[in-house]
């Protein structure tokens, strides 16, 4: 589990997040949603410990260790072009090695498991620059999994994926948290996908929690429109709420015809 306790972040004296308090339990999936600039990425970075923040972040009362306790997948990871997939995933073992240490056999086994889980075996000797967007995203996720941290923080893990690959990646995450009890926190722009997979959604707006609850509680027009603007319609069917973007002037009959 992971808890943010009164976490606040300021840049150049201007508060961008918080104070925010949240707790995500073992095996739980929390979906952070909110418009651009709402503070989703910053809240995740504060948890990793790579932005200075007020308040504290802990794992069930225990202080967090960077990398070993929390695996973080950034929104736009830097992929060294010529590095092979296998070497890249191997970097996920860094938190478990001393500064001057090198990988042992169990590190290589973790890497092997992450690579096969993300279906990257055939690509493991390929340079990162030759991968498609979806393959690269899977490689980044494999690197995060190789960390074998109990908490996974994923910033837009499906941003460069088509809907098929996005579903595939999210299903893998779902399986991981179910079978291995991982705590998963994702920042997602796709509200429908967030609602389908997360157990609980937190809507951030201007760095504050604007709404919190299940998908059917948070994904309503009344909750979303104040944060995102008016062009939103929510339709609920058997799968849960579906968020549909609408145009303000979508009445095509008013367009001139010849």
């Amino acid at each position, binding site marked *: 589990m992971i808890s943010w306790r009164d976490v606040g972040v300021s840049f150049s004296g201007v508060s961008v997040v918080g104070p925010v308090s949240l707790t995500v339990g073992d095996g739980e999936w929390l979906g952070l949603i909110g418009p651009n600039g709402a503070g989703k990425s910053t809240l995740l*970075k504060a948890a*990793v*410990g*790579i932005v200075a923040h007020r308040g504290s972040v802990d794992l069930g009362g225990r202080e967090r*260790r*960077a*990398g*070993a306790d*929390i695996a*973080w997948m*950034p929104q736009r*990871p*830097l992929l*060294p*072009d*010529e*590095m*092979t997939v296998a*070497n890249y995933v191997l*970097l*996920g073992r*860094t*938190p478990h*090695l001393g*500064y*001057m240490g*090198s990988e042992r056999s169990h590190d290589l086994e973790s890497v092997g498991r992450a690579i096969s889980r993300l279906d990257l075996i055939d690509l493991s000797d390929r*340079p990162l620059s030759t991968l498609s967007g979806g393959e690269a995203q899977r490689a980044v996720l494999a690197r995060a999994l190789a*960390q074998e941290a109990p908490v996974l923080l994923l910033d837009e893990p499906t941003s460069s994926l088509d809907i098929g690959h996005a579903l595939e990646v999210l299903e893998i995450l779902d399986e991981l948290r179910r079978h291995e009890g991982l705590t998963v926190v994702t920042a997602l722009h796709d509200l429908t996908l967030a609602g389908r997979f997360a157990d609980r959604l937190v809507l951030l707006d201007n760095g504050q929690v604007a709404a919190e609850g299940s998908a059917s509680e948070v994904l309503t027009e009344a909750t979303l429109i104040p944060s995102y603007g008016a062009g939103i319609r929510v339709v609920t069917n058997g799968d849960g709420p579906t968020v549909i973007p609408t145009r303000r002037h979508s009445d095509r009959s008013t367009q001139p015809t010849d």
Partner: protein
Amino acid sequence: MAAAILVVVALAGLLVGSVALSPVEVIKALADRLPFVTVEHGLSEVETRLLFELRMPRVVIGGLVGAVLAVAGAGYQGVFRNPLADPYLLGVAAGAGLGATAVIGLGAGSAAIPLVAFVGGIAAVGATYALSRTVGGRTTTTLILAGVAVAAFATAVQTFLLQRNYETLREVYSWILGRLVTVGWSEVWTLIPYALAAATVLVLMRRLLDVLGLGDEEAAGLGVDVMRVRRLVVLAATLATAAAVSVSGLIAFVGIIVPHTIRLLTGWSYRVIIPLSLVYGASFLILADLGARTLVAPAELPIGVVTAFLGAPFFLLVLRSMRGSS
């Protein structure tokens, strides 16, 4: 294979020169020097002295200087995430050169040269990095341009010092061009501790250089203290460069040619680039020295001229390929 190439090149370095030595006799004479081994060899006393007191220290120092310049280049490229970073282009060599010139010009003992060169080198790389950060961004061009500016400044101060100390001009000038001519075993012993310390640190940090390739935030997210790693690597690489510069003068481009060729052949990982840079760097400089000794025989070219002659076009090729890929 890298080790085999080094052995062949080093042997060639011992055999080739104004006096030709028989390969078989040289190998016998080398074996004779091994502990607990006695081998009869046919070299005369003059030839034996030529082998052990002139050619061998020169080959050893060439190998050491080449190894540390190449591994320092690879280290700088890793921490600055920039394939064009090189002891010469970052101004480190010029800073170290200024330090060494000051020592020669002031007539201080030559034992102080590596230390003062190190201070000059650290000041130069610090100035280059700070300048590139204040000018804006971390682009390749900004860093290299800052290096050029720092190198120009250091060279200007160096020229000023030379003007003031006219009697040492010739000594410093031959040193600026890079030379392995005057070295003997004493320079080898001066260089070895610095080279060993720097190479050990860089070899041990090679895995973390790969981690730095992910960017500062991700590296920190993996639990790495980025500033500490960067500082350690820069210190080690600068120490290596300063020590090399203090015995051999300014030898340019080794730090680009060697790591970049290895990168082209084996891929991106510093796990491979760092150790291979040591071995291929040594081979490359021994070979360049062979060229310097034989191309205009009986005269000699400064070795810095040979490496620059090869390195400048290579630099342009690297720059072109970077433009192509970006």
